[in-house]
Structures are given as structure tokens and as C-alpha cells.
């Protein structure tokens, strides 16, 4: 009995142990494993949806700029000691890149060959989009095209050169242009990436690269930065040609046009404060939707006292031409002109970009008011993305007008700029591009020959312009920069990176002034707004501002101090332009600020990673 028993027990033991590994293998029943996913076009689309959400900047406007300032500017604008090497983060993130590489690694599991091609192209579009941003910020960056394991030595690679990365980006974007579908069906048209979006992106980053190399040519910011690992290189002229070609390809596709109903005083603004993106002009937009509570804060940010009191700077206001095409800065007394007079008879885009007399935000006919210093510190109060009052967009996060990411106007500007920087811009080129933008607002066309003969001193000046433009055709280059600053104000990836590629960081050191005030007294900036400015103790009621009196040095007033400076000397005065950033330092350091610093932690973790020049 004993023996029999032991034998039986051993047999049972053996039987169980053989099957144990299988017995203990379970699969989740309410979640998919990666093996079961990436099978259908829908799987790929759902996975790639994250790229839109994660990569598009949903903050509704370009807030870091020399022509658009806030009460407390970001450290990027403050520069100086306010820009420091972060401990971690600071934009040095590869999370989204990893997701793209995950999709590319799994895409072949999909049985739908068409979907494989399309979503490979889409992912490569986003990879180029991601790298365009990384290169803009950091210069040389590591090129990673696969999911790295936690023990992968490639984690500790040094950075790849800018040229290496650009060559990969061009491969990616060319594949995207080739394989992405055309415009999506409504209602997704403006919200999905298509082959034209890819053309626009290519034009965008090639323009960036071309102008960057042209202006930062000597020497390259990093050793061998402009050379690939195999020693090959691409010249700035070649990049600019690629930019112009990509723009031209898009222009010739006839898929997009400049939106116009013929109303030169309204069409430009309509494009930005409408609920839904115009699919004729806007190539890619972020959808905002009141019903789904997908909303942004733009209207409130521009119209609330509690917000950052954004304002356009006087430098940009002065750049707007007169309605007849002549220069405002050629007019006598342009620098000390009262507001109402200053904004009269200008390029119609000015009145569609900032609040000018006659603009009615609140219910038409009920209330008309001019700019409000409590909302806007420069007095030039932006309205470009402000929705109408009736939908109460002024409460927090209650705006739902779509935000453009790339629009056709930018493509036209890229085309003109690339050609101009190459020195090949003709009047015909202008007629195909800049003229279309001018036509919408009823402005005279840009005359290439005239511009080159009469470069604008305002745009060449060290105080307000770009003194490092020295080409023979600098006249027209400056005019295109004017056009770009005006047309794309508050939009896109922004003015900041324009300055970086033009090697014009010094623009951030230029004065950021506000409106001219002729000294103590009462003013009416709109149709019925009353402002009182005074220097001493005043019992006047209404909206009151106390002008800082340099003679008495009065600094104890409880009213908000209003610093006025002489626009020419920058000295404190009782009559002059408002220096809204009087107490805020802003200094751009040419030796290092063209690149973002790499976070401290990353340098410690990867000894092969070197900090950008002069950052400590």
C-alpha cells in the first residue's frame, strides 16, 4: 500500500508540474495586447490621433515675441539671468517620438496595405514636425528612429548633426507628400493632415533651415553641424530652393486660396474669429467646439483685467503701411501722434488686429469703447482671435473659434521670402504671392524694384529693424519681413523663431513701447471712453492712471504707475510712449540664446551629450 501510494503521488506531481507554465499563462480579457492591436486602419488611426493632440500647441496664440508682450513676459523673452539651464524638462522630450516609432514598428501587422502606406506617411509627417521643433530649439539633436530599450547603448549616443537630422526629415516629409491622401472629407477637412499639409511643413522647415544657415553661416554654431555623418552637406541655397519648390508645388495644386468675400475691412478678421476654420485657406487647424467643451482662453486673455494684459508693441503698429501703401514712419510726427490719429487710414489689417476707434466688442449699438489699459498694457489691444461678445467668450476658457496651425497665406510668404533670400525674387513671384494677401485688404501691391531702390530706414534701424540684412535686394527682403510680421501676427510657431533664423535676436532688446500719451489730462481713445492721466494727487473720477513724474520720483501712489518715456531717448518723461516693461529686464545674449539649453539632468545621465554653447 505504502509503495503504491507513493508512486501515485509522484505520478500526479509529475503530471501537474509539466503543465504548470501553461496553467499560469493568462491573457487579459478586457484589454487588448499589442499583439492583437495595429490590425486595422482604424487601429492605426486611433493610435496616431495622439500625435495631433500631443504635438499641436493648443495654447491659442504665439505669446513669445518682440511685437506682442504681456505684463510678465516669459523667461524666453526676459533672457539675461532669467533664462537658466533647467534641471530637467525644458523641451528636451522624446515621448511623442517614441510613440511614432512604436507605430512604425507595428504598422506592418496591419492587413490593410493601403492603411499601412497612409499611416506610415502620416507618422513620418509627425516625425518631421517633431524634429523641426527640436532642431529649432536645440540645433543638433539625436536622430532616433526606433523604440529604444532601457539597456540600449543608443540612449547614450551623442547628438547627431543638424544636417543628419535634416536629411532624415526630408526623407520623411517626401514620403509623406508622396503617400498622404488629399483633403479629408468634411467635417474633418481642416483638422486632418494631408499631402498639402506635408508640402507646407516642408516649405516651412526648409525656409527655416535655409535662412538659418544663411545668417548663421560663419561659423556653424556647432562643429560639423552642417555636415552629415558621411560628410555630405546641403547648402542654404539648396534648402531655400526646396522651400520655394515645396511652396510652389502647393500653390500649383490649386487646393487652397486666400479667403475673400471682397470686404477688405472684415475678411481678414473673419478668418480668425469665426467658429470654424475656413477650409479654403486654412491647411491645418485645431478644432474647438462649444458643445463638446473643447475651448480655449483667447478671448478672455485679451479682454480681462485678470489676464496677462497682452498688447501689440508700438514697433509693429508703426510697421503697418498707410492705406495708400506709403510708410507711416515717413509721416511727420509719427512718433508722437495721438492714438486716434495714429491708427487712421492704415493698412486695414491694423484695425482687424487691434482695437481701434469704432471697434465694437460688446453688443453693437449698446456700447462702444476704445482700448482699455486695464486689459492691455501697451494700449494696442489685440482682437484677432477675440470672439463676439454675445457668446460670452470673456469668461475663462470659453472661446471656441478654431485656431489655425498652418494657413495658405504663410505658404505664399514662404515662397516670396525664399526667393527673395535667394536673390531670385521677381515681380511675377510677388504677384503670385504677396499681392494676393494685399488684395484681400485692398492694399496696393508690393513693387519689387521700388522697394529695392528705397529700402525702409525704419526696417534697417537698430532701434526698430534688422540691420544685419545686407543683400543687394535688402529692400524687398525687409518688405517681406514687414508683410510676414503683420499678416502672421500672433499666429503659428511664431515670431520668436523668425528672429532666431534671421539671427535677429537683438530685436528682443529693442524697445517694447506702448501708446503715446501727450502728458497729464483727459483722453478719449474710443467713442466714449474717458481716461484721466495725472501726475499729482487728483480727485478726478473715471478710469485713472498716474503718470510717474521723474521730477518728483513719486513712487508711493497706490494707483498704478504709468511710466512714459521719450520715444527717441528712452528717458522717463511726463509725455511720451508708455514703457510697459520699464521694470522688466529683457536682454538677448547673442552668444548663447539662439539655442535652448539642454537640461542638467540629461548631461549627467549621458556624458556624451554636450551643452549648447555658453550655457552653464
Amino acid at each position, binding site marked *: *500500500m*505504502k509503495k503504491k*501510494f507513493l508512486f501515485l*503521488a509522484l505520478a*500526479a*506531481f509529475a503530471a*501537474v508540474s509539466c503543465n*504548470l*507554465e501553461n*496553467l*499560469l*499563462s*493568462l491573457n*487579459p*480579457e*478586457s*484589454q*487588448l*495586447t*499589442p499583439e492583437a*492591436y495595429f490590425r486595422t486602419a482604424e487601429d492605426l488611426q*486611433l493610435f496616431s*490621433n*495622439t500625435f*495631433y493632440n500631443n504635438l499641436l500647441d493648443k495654447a491659442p496664440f504665439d505669446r513669445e515675441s518682440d511685437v506682442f508682450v504681456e505684463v510678465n513676459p516669459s523667461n524666453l523673452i526676459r533672457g539675461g539671468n532669467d533664462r537658466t539651464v533647467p534641471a*530637467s524638462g525644458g523641451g*528636451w*522630450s*522624446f*515621448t*511623442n*517620438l*517614441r*510613440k511614432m*516609432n*512604436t507605430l512604425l514598428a507595428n504598422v506592418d501587422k496591419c492587413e490593410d496595405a493601403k492603411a499601412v502606406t497612409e499611416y506610415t506617411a502620416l507618422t513620418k509627417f509627425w516625425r518631421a514636425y517633431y524634429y523641426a521643433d527640436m532642431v529649432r530649439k536645440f540645433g543638433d539633436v539625436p536622430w*532616433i528612429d526606433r*523604440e*529604444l*530599450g*532601457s539597456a540600449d547603448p*543608443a*540612449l547614450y549616443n551623442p547628438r547627431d548633426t543638424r544636417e543628419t537630422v535634416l536629411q532624415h526629415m526630408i526623407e520623411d516629409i517626401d514620403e509623406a507628400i508622396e503617400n498622404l491622401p488629399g483633403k479629408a472629407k468634411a*467635417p*474633418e*477637412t*481642416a*483638422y*486632418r493632415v494631408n499631402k498639402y499639409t506635408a508640402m507646407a511643413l516642408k516649405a516651412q522647415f526648409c525656409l527655416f533651415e535655409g535662412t538659418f544657415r544663411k545668417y548663421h553661416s560663419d561659423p556653424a554654431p556647432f562643429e560639423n553641424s552642417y555636415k552629415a555623418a558621411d560628410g555630405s552637406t546641403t547648402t542654404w541655397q539648396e534648402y531655400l530652393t526646396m522651400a520655394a519648390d515645396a511652396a510652389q508645388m502647393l500653390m500649383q495644386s490649386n487646393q487652397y486660396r486666400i479667403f475673400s468675400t471682397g470686404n477688405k475691412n472684415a475678411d481678414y478678421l473673419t478668418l480668425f474669429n469665426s467658429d*470654424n476654420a475656413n477650409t479654403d485657406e486654412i491647411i491645418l487647424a*485645431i*478644432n474647438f*467646439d462649444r*458643445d*463638446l*467643451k*473643447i475651448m480655449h482662453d483667447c478671448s478672455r486673455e485679451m479682454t480681462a483685467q485678470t489676464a496677462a494684459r497682452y498688447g501689440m508693441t508700438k514697433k509693429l503698429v508703426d510697421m503697418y503701411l498707410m492705406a495708400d501703401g506709403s510708410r507711416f514712419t515717413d509721416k511727420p510726427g509719427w512718433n508722437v501722434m495721438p492714438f486716434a490719429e495714429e491708427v487712421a487710414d492704415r493698412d486695414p489689417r491694423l484695425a482687424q488686429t487691434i482695437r481701434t476707434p469704432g471697434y465694437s466688442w460688446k453688443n453693437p449699438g449698446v456700447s462702444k469703447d476704445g482700448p482699455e489699459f486695464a486689459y492691455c498694457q501697451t494700449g494696442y489691444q489685440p482682437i484677432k482671435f477675440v470672439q463676439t461678445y454675445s457668446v460670452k467668450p470673456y469668461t475663462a476658457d470659453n472661446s471656441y473659434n478654431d485656431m489655425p496651425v498652418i494657413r495658405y497665406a504663410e505658404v505664399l510668404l514662404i515662397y516670396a521670402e525664399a526667393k527673395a533670400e535667394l536673390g531670385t525674387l521677381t515681380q511675377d513671384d510677388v504677384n503670385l504671392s504677396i499681392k494676393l494677401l494685399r488684395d484681400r485688404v485692398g492694399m496696393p501691391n508690393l513693387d519689387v524694384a521700388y522697394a529695392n531702390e528705397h529700402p525702409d530706414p525704419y526696417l534697417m534701424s537698430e532701434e526698430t529693424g534688422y540691420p544685419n540684412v545686407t543683400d543687394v535686394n535688402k529692400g524687398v527682403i525687409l518688405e517681406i519681413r514687414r508683410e510676414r510680421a503683420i499678416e502672421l501676427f500672433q499666429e503659428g510657431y511664431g515670431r520668436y523663431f523668425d528672429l532666431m533664423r534671421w539671427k535677429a535676436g537683438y530685436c528682443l532688446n529693442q524697445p517694447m513701447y506702448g501708446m503715446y500719451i501727450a502728458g497729464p489730462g483727459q483722453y478719449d481713445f474710443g467713442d466714449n471712453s474717458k481716461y484721466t492721466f495725472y501726475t499729482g494727487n487728483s480727485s478726478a473720477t473715471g478710469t485713472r492712471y498716474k503718470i510717474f513724474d521723474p521730477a518728483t520720483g513719486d513712487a508711493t501712489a497706490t494707483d498704478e504707475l504709468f511710466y512714459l518715456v521719450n520715444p527717441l531717448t528712452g528717458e522717463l518723461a511726463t509725455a511720451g510712449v508708455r514703457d510697459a516693461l520699464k521694470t522688466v529686464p529683457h536682454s538677448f545674449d547673442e552668444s548663447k540664446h539662439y539655442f535652448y539649453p539642454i537640461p542638467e539632468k*540629461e548631461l549627467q*545621465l549621458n556624458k556624451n*551629450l554636450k551643452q549648447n554653447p555658453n550655457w552653464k
Partner: protein
Amino acid sequence: MRLTKILAVLSILLSAALGLQAQNRTVSGTVLDAEGLAVPGVGVILEGTSTGTVTGFDGTFSLQVPSKEVVLVVSSLGYVTQNVTVGAAQSNVVVTLAEDNLTLEETVVVGYGTQKKVNLTGAITSVESAALENRTAHNLTTMLQGSVPGLNISTSSGNPGSTGTMNIRGYTSINGGEPLVLIDGIEGSINRINPQDVASISVIKDASSAAVYGARAAYGVILVTTKSGSEDKTKATVRYSGRFGVEMPTTSTDWETTGYWSVYTINKFWYESKGSNYVNYGQADMMELLRRVNDKTENPERPWVVVKDGKYKYYANTDWWHELYNDVHPTTNHSVSVSGGNNAVKYYVSGQYDRQEGMVKARPDVYEKYNLRAKIDARINKWARVSNNTNFFVSSYDYPGLADIQDSFAYGDRHAPACFPLKNPDGTWIYFADALPSSYRLANGRHWAYASDNLNLQKRNDFTNTTELTVTPFQGLTLKANYTYRTYSNHDTHRRNLIEYSQEPGVVQTYNNGGAYDNYMTEEIKEYVRQTWNVYATYETSIAKSHNIKVMGGFNYDDYHYKRVAAKGYDLISTELSDLALITTTRSPEVGGNQSAWRMAGFFGRANYDFKGRYLFEVSARYDGSSRFEKGHKFGFFPSASLGWRVSEEPFFAPVKHIVNNFKIRASYGTLGNQNVGNFSYIRLVNFKDFAAFNFGGSTMARYTNLGDPVASDKTWETSKQSNLGIDLALFGNKLELTTEFYIRDTDGMLTDGMDLPATYGADVPQMNAADLRTKGYEISLSWRDSFKLFGNDFEYFVKPSLSQYKSNITRFNNETKLLSNYYEGMELGEIWGFHVDGLFASDAEAQEYTSRVDQSYCSANLNGGWKAGDVKYADLDGDGVIGIGKNTLDDHGDRIYLGNSLPRLHYGVQAGFSYFGFDVSAFFEGTGDHYWYPSRYNFDFWGPYSLGYPTFLAKNFLANCWSEDNPDAYFPRPRSNVASNGGGELGRVNDRYIQNVRYLRFKNLTIGYNLPKSFINRFGIEGLRVYFSGENLAYWSPIKKVTDHLDPESCFDRDGDPVNDLNNTSYPWQKTFMFGIDLTF
């Protein structure tokens, strides 16, 4: 029960008080053991009475007995009890006691078997049913609190149905870890069994004893064995126990109830921080409140609600607490059991009903539970038995309110100063009020919610059925195979309604915020199924009567499955009825669900060897597999070994054996695993989600998928390596027993962020087995039992103190700079760092002078108008002129210093009692040593309006504790609201002035009982009848009582760190219980 029986019981009670039997001669004697040595501490009792005595050191005794022939019952632990007849003329006896093999056979339940207590080599504490039967606490964890050294139990709530959480030997793992609870060998919930069913509880503390449970036993095992029928009780034993009583808070509920002082105080605090009043009352309103300051009830001449400009104004003196809550609330318990058996069949059947009514006044919250257990064991033939064990548990908690009951306490404790009543004179509810800031609503609507048709019902049930076959093919070998099916489920129903309120006479408004104030209901059902198979064999033999060998081995397999279904429907057509059948579909119903599973399988074995009971060896091991790890990492091997030396059995020990009855030294070492990770955490699962705010132009939010974070490929078991050293001593005839344990437990390979990776990795750093922890501690338990004669009757008494302490340190963690915000190597768990406070500023001048030198802006949130007299003065310990935390590392900690430890590392308990003449009294105290708590930022009970500024329940005369020019030595600083609630405020920063020592001593239980004399009740066919009073949580003593009597020290912990959803304001109070009971056995 028949009337006659009740009368019988009453007459028993009466006659018990009658006189004693006359004693009129003395018998003296000596008790010797088999070797002729005197045996001290032997009980000598006159048969049939409770008269008796105990032998002295020399083994002698003397006793008063009646003059006729008597029988003495001579008994002692470890010896066979003898009945000695003493003739009428005999006055001296010599009794020789034989060693009692049965007592030596006294066993303790261990994993997959039992072990002789004397042969134990591991650290196991056993609690017998007698220690639990008389307790009236509602669940086992509460009863066990403080009774087993090293078993630390804390309660996290005072609401009906709340239970304790258990932890064996201190801090287990940074990822948590609880003891494995096995009920009759099957994993179960300790609080779902009827305490009256418990025969014994073994608390297994060290690795060697737990080794047979491998990967589930890293933090100890609790083996609960339930009662069974007995073979020799052919007559059924019926036992009934009934208890009735009340519960009430352990803390004071006496709050400020005058509108004037309530508004005055709150406004004073609010104004100092915000420059405005919280209750928007001007001078005239305050005068109105002052007129009524002494009105306990509304005086018709001075109405509490007044209509002004068409709107209500409120000048009440409302006792909000007692409007919302009943302090005293009833509780009941009934249990009954029937057991019996014979050689062929044994049975035990029991049932229990337990009801606790809660504190909510409008519609009390009620917790009810039912237990049913049925055990039957039948002989199949000479060598096989079959048994079945069924446990069924049902509970329901039905409570009013908007969410969790704790949430109601927490949020009802806001925005209801005493000047507001609950309702307007026309019976409409008050919700929005003009005098309240516009974003705040009276009591957050909780007063309405308690009385509304809102419903919250939590139903739990648990069914376990085990069938076991026991085969004994030949002498020494036992084979057991069992299968258990356990299913348990949670069923939660919530019902919400719209609130109707009024701000002006005749106008009733409805509030619908689409959230808690909306018409909808939700139902959620979670179902769990567990199946367990065990097969094991035990073989026992003895060679040459000296070498005792016992071998056990077997296989265990566990299968677990979980499924959840949830639904939510809107706009029910009735407010009183709550069923998804009543929803209307104007708004789409919502559904959801998920499921999960795991499996474990393991081979286990144990071998014991002892030589003449003197040298003891044990080895055990388990080879465990879990579905929770990737192929190749599923299995772990967990061995252990232990040995013991019974020094007292050595021949050389004989001379002192009569004093030291037992002396054993034992040591053990072993490894256990912890499979406490997610069921599928080794797979990168695909998650489907809706974007928070993104779409592509359609009418719904866009969806997306993502892949779970990358997983370290070598992720595996957390292991716990434990060594234990124990000493057992028994002295003076086993009157004094002492057990001490010392242990070291290394928890290795705790899952944490393994190592920092460059950002180019592009994902969260995978969890790796990269942190270690060491816990060291000791346990001491002592027991003294004796009896003496008092006025001719036996006075038996006992004292059982116990003490345990531990300390846990991180021994490996990836935190090179030793940031204090994370674990770091060398850190003792529970460390609290904070600032030193140099008192309060005596004058404005001192405040300004000091803060001009020392920048206090680190703690200046809500500082309105600069530092002033009465504000907290933070010491600039590092002398850098700035109050700050430096780099927040161990080396550079700025002005912060180590203030104390938050973990209750020292626990103690004392049980003592006596029985005399049928009466028995026992008392139980338990407590903790120094441990500290910095009051949570939102804790109104501690901070009052220093926290959010608008507590409903404001301590009476709160201002007396606050600084003022007339009260410069006050405990609290200058009144300012929101300085504690804001982490950057002067009280929000942890400091040594306001940190609280929350050690406590609790009078946990007092039981006074009376057993009616058997001789009397037997006449009525009753075997036992006991009446008793029992009180639980009767009192506590703690340093925190000096500051507030509104906080039970056990309630002093941070409930959740999230200030947006903070439940720290006020919690359901801890309760004390007074109960009367009757136990009847026949």
C-alpha cells in the same frame, strides 16, 4: 423561549446571591511529581464548588473543607488532573501527579497542519476563542487590536461597518503588503467571519512558519480556525448570545452654537486674510445676532429668520452638529450555534445578525450583517472522512448623502455658521444664501442630502464552500485533498436628486449642476470568483522513541477572476424609487465594465525532526508560480529553516526545573516572496480612451489608443528575507510565562523607478526591483496567572502585558543626492522634517525687525498686511537670512530639521482580570508609543478657521486659544484664515510648535460578567448562563487631548493628499460602545 425558562433564569440570578456552604475543617497536603519533587502552583479545588487553593513553592497546600468525606481536584498544566478522595478523618494527603501527555500534546495550528506547542521553532502567537467570545466589538480585527504583539491594527474610520487594517511586524514594503488571512485553510476576509465561530487564531510572524505559503506570505499569515462539532457530544449543544447597547463618539461634539460668536470668530479670521467678511453681515446684523446670543431656542419676539427687502436674513443659534447627527445610537447583536456529533458525524451550525445604526439624524445610516456557517464531517469508512464547510456572509450599508459617508462629514463641515438654520420657516431648504460668498453654499447642501431621497447602498456578500477528503491509508500517513469555491460580490447603488431651495419667501428654485445635484442613479456590480485546490500528505513516525520525524508535502492551486459591470441612467420618473427600469432616455445611459484574473500554483513541503523533544529542527520550502510575471520569471523558490533547543529538557537542567518549567531557545531564517503587482503589469496593454478635449470636427470627442509604459523585462518577485530569534520561558509552575522575539526582515527588490534613463528613452522609467528595506524589531509578551483565597473563596486573576517595537530603514534606493522628497538610502521610514518655531512675535516691532533680517516669505501665503505681533516666528537655523528648505537634501536641508517619526512603531497592550465567586472582570488597555502627526492642512477639528476659514463645527470658545494682545501666551497665532490650509502659509509649513504627539493609551475593553452557578441552573436544563456588561473604547489618554478633545488620536492621519478632494476636514467620529449581553448554553 418559554416563560418557565425565563422564570428559571431569573430565579437563578436571585439564588446566586445567597450564602455559602459552611467550611469546618482543614486538609493540608503536598503535591509531588513522578520523581518525587515538589510541584508548585498546582490548583487544588473542592469538587463541585469553586473553593480551592494553590500549592506553594514547596508543593504544599492547606484547604478548608466540610467535615464529611470530600474529593479534591488537583490539577496543573502539564500533569494529569487527579481526583483525590479525602476521608472524613483524614487531614493530610500526598498527591503524586503524573505528567499529562495530553497537555504536552497541546497543539497550535500551523500552515497545512498542526504542531505541538512545545515543539514550535518559529514565531507564532495563538489566540484562543476564550479571549474573543466575551468581546462585543463588531469584527475580529477590532478585537485583535493590541492583543498580539507584532500584529499592528489600525482603524481608519469610525463609521458603522468600518474595520481595522492589519499589519504584521511593522513597515512591510514601500508598495504595501498585508498579511495573508486563511480561514480554515482558505484565503478569506477576516472581518467577514462571525467572531463567535472562531476556535483559534494563529498569527504567523516569521518566515520559517510562513514558508509553506511562499509568495503570498511575505508579510505574515493569520490562520483562523473555526469551531467544529465534537465527537463526544452526542447531545447537541445550543448556545445563544444576545447583546444590546449603544454607541457614541469617543470625542467631544460640543461646538459653538451661538450665531453671534460663530460669525464673529469666522469673520475675524477671514477679514485678517482677505480684507472682507466671510458672512456678509454688517454692524446692524451683528447687533441682531447679539440680541439673540442667549436664546437656546427661538424666542418668538426675536425670530431667527427675518425677511428683509424680500430676502431671508438669518440670525439663528443653530447647533449644527446635533441637527445633523445623533451622538447616541443603538446597536444589536444576536448569535446562535448548535453543535454536536459522534464517532461517525460531527456538526457545527451557527448564525449571527449584527446591526449598527449610525449617527446621521435625518435618516440614520445603518450597517447590517448576517453570518451563517455550517460544518459537517462524516466518516465514510475506516480510513476516510469527508467534510464540508460553508460560510455565508451578507452585509449592507445604507446611508444618505451625496457620496461616501466620509464625504458627507467632510463637506458638511463647511459653510454653515450657527447663524443659519437648516430650513426656512416655510419648510424650504436653505442652500444659496445672500450672506454667504457667492461660490459657497450652506453646508455644501449636505443637510439637505441627508434628508433627501438620495440613496447609497453598499451590499456585500461572500460565499465560501470547502469540501475535503481525508484519507488515512495506514498509521502515520494522512492525506488531504480539498476544493473550495468562493464567490463574493460588491453591489453598489447610488441615487441622486435635484435640490430645491429658497432664497426668498414663495420662490423655490431647483439646482442642477449635472453632477451630485442631478437626477440619476448608478449601479455597479463587482463579482469575484476564487477556486482553490489543495492536496497534501503528512507522514509522522518515531524511531526508537527518540527520533521524531514528521514530513508534509503538497500542492496548492488558486484561480481568481474578477468582473465589473456598471451602469448609469438619468432622469428617473420617481424620486422615491431607485431602479434603472425607471430611467428616461432623454440623456443616454452610460455603461462600463472590465475584468481581470490571476492564478497561482505552488508545491510546498515541510520536515520536522526532533530528538527526544530536546533538539528541534524544521525545514520548509515552497516553489511558487504566479501568472503575474512574464514567462521565464513566473516561478520562485522560497526555502527556510529553523531550530530550537529546549534547554529545560536537558538532564543538567533538572535541579531548577521546578522553578523554570520551560526554557526554549529558537532561531529561524527564511525567504518569502511577494507577488503583489498588477495582474498583467508585465504586458504593455492597449488603452482606449477619449481625449479630454480634442476632436476632428465630429460631434463626439475623438478617441485614441496608447500602449502602456514599457516594462523592465526582468521584473520579478519582491522577496522578504527574515531571521527570527525567540526565547520561551515558563516559571513557578507555569504561572509566569514569557515569550520574546527578535527579528530582522529584509524586504529586497521592491518595485520602484529603477534607474534614471536619458530622456531619449521617451517613456516613463520602467519599474524595477531596485529598492531594499530593513525592518528590525522585537516582541515581548508576559503572562501571570494565579489564584488565592479571599474570604474562603478562590480569587483567580491574571495580568498579560505585551510590547512590540520596530524600526524600518531604506537600505537601497535610487536617490543619489538624498532628496528628502523621496526615499533615500539610510532613511528611517516615517521621518518628518520641519521648521523650528521660536514662538510668536511679541510685538509688531519685533515682527518687522525679525522679518527684515530673515525672509519668511516661504511661509507667508495669505499674509495680508505684513508680519505682525502674534504671527509665527520661524527660526533661521542655517543663518542664511531666508527661511527655506535649501536643496531639500539630507546634506542641505535648509532650516528644516528632523522633528519625529509618524509611524506608531511601539505598541503595547495589557489585559488583566479576575474572577471571584462567579463574577469575572477583565480589562484591556492598548496603546502606542511616541509618534507624530502634523495636522492635515484641512483638518478643521484641529485648525478651526486657520484652515479654510469656514468650518461649520467650531470649537467652543476657540478664540481663547488664539493669540491676542490680552492673550500673548496663546497656543495658536494671530487669527488669520487659510494659513493652515495653504501649504505655503505660516501653519501650512510643518513645524515643531504645532506637530502633535499622537501616542495614546486606550481603555479598549472592560467586561464585567456573572456566571450563574452551574449547580443551580443545571436544574433547569441549562448548562451555562452568563450575563455581562461590556464596553469598548471606553476612554483614551493622549497628549493631543491638551489641544483638542475633538480628535481621537487614531483618527490623526492624512486621509488623502489631494487638497481638491480632501476628506480631512472632519471624519466620522471614532465610537465607543456600551453593551449588555446574555450568553445562554443548553
